[in-house]
């Protein structure tokens, strides 16, 4: 069920576009932000609001990698950049350090559902590499030591 708050936020942006179809990406972002992922039921409800077919939203969800359709992630989604500028200054080592610390492999979620670890492509922070994004925050200039402090520092 979409929350009333999400519905209100979605309706508020109708005026930004010339048609409802253009609202779809932002609408899905608004809903995902609430619990970190989207369910098929969410897509059906959003589709009804926007006069679209659920499959059209499914297409968007499958194409853009940040949407987690039917893919629950932990409370903290740890996404480490694996691209060249980060790799040149130790991204692989950072990933190994995180895997060891959280006792999970890339693509997995910890048993307590707190952390999910993913590899991602360039996040535009190459001058402060290696770096990671946790939920919507960037953490840059990572070292073996500070990455553990950052992860343990979450409530």
């Amino acid at each position, binding site marked *: 069920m979409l929350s009333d708050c999400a519905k209100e936020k979605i309706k508020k942006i109708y005026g*930004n*576009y*010339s*048609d409802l*179809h*253009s*609202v*779809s*990406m*932002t609408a*899905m*972002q608004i809903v995902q932000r609430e619990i970190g992922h989207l369910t098929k039921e969410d897509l059906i409800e959003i589709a009804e609001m926007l006069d679209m077919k659920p499959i*059209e939203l499914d*297409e*968007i969800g499958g*194409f*853009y*990698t*940040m*949407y987690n359709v039917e893919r629950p992630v932990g409370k903290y989604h740890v996404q480490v950049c*694996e*691209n*060249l*500028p980060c*790799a*040149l*200054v130790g991204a692989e080592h950072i990933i190994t350090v995180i895997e060891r610390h959280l006792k999970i492999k890339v693509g997995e979620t910890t048993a307590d559902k707190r952390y999910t670890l993913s590899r*991602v*492509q*360039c*996040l*535009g*922070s*190459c*001058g*402060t*590499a290696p770096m990671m*994004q946790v939920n*919507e*925050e*960037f953490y840059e200039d990572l070292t073996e030591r500070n990455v553990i402090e950052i992860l343990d520092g979450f409530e």
Partner: protein
Amino acid sequence: MAVEKILLHNVDKPNSHKLDTYLAGGGYEDLRKALAMGRDDLVQLVKDSGLRGRGGAGFPAGLKWSFIPKDPSLQKYLCCNADEGEPGTFKDRIIIEKDPHLLIEGMAITCHAINSDKSYIYIRGEFEYGAQILEQAIEEAYEKGYLGKNIMGTDFSLDMYVHRGYGAYICGEETALLESIEGYRGQPRKKPPFPALAGLNGKPTVINNVESLACIPGIIRKGSKWFANMGPEKSPGPKLFCVSGHIEKPGVYELPMGTTGREIIYEVCGGIKAGRKFKAVIPGGVTAPMLVEKDLDLSMDFDTMAQAGSMLGSGAVIVMDDTTCMVRTSYIINRFFSHESCGKCTPCREGTIWMTQILERMENGEGRPGDVEELERLCDNIFGRTFCPLGDGAVMALRGCLKHFREEFVYHVENGRCMVKGGF
């Protein structure tokens, strides 16, 4: 190398993202000046400046604007491309986060020039912080009458919206970007028709990169001659170079177009990290074929880089020292392209995956005889046969690496390990 900063003029000020800070530095006065100018004069001014698109393609900005039909009854759009995703690039982010009003002013002037009253900033979803900064800045601009109805008492009105992408490199391609704003998968459209005639919602649309738009207020203020006289005649102006990799002082630097790679690496950025030896440099994001020592004195501009068989691209300079294994480098770059291929056309969708599979087994010491030749055949079969430049980009990167370091690939296949000794 001290140069007057135009694009990064404000970024070190406290609260540089706030309207008050921007106004204190003379902000929005260039919009006032532009609104007093005729549209044709504005387009001519930008044409005369020689400004070429800073997103990577280097297309003349004024010429792009001049393609927009003049019919006042047609809805026209400006879309700012803030989908900064070319690996190695982090220049637009600094403008977005630290000086959003410079971008908004540049967009407002551009909208006046093309007679558009509706504009979008397409920002990659990962830049959530930047998107929020932009939304706050837009709100401030509305409150003070720099956006909205009858701006500065003229008949010019403009609405501006932020639209977030959500993880697709291909949306930096301008027609894929338009598809994404319309709520579809970001797959490129067939051109022609070009966006200037049929863009967003089928209406005439200009798509400009953040840095290009951020150049506009400076051109209004200091004139087209000032801009045209900086750097090489055919690709002039200030340029943001983002330097990363094995370098002492990585970061974003505003330098005249045409600064050499050697100046950037050794004079501006303090040389190779930990005093190691230079091996290669990618001059314009991972798509740009790498250059070697002998190329370091070339002028970093659109035309010289193209003549050298590479490209200036986004000005993303990725520096590699002598510990760098080129098989591993190519594997990482190709993995990116196969991940980001949109799937629309077969040579790119399948070809980038095949290339990555071959590079991966080479990297893991499981290369097979003939693998290097197979990679070269794949390059020949992908290049020029893809729907958009992404597939070509994957080939250009790999060919660039093979051109200079083919023996490392052969060694990897024959010996199952790196030819270079070191950390990477």
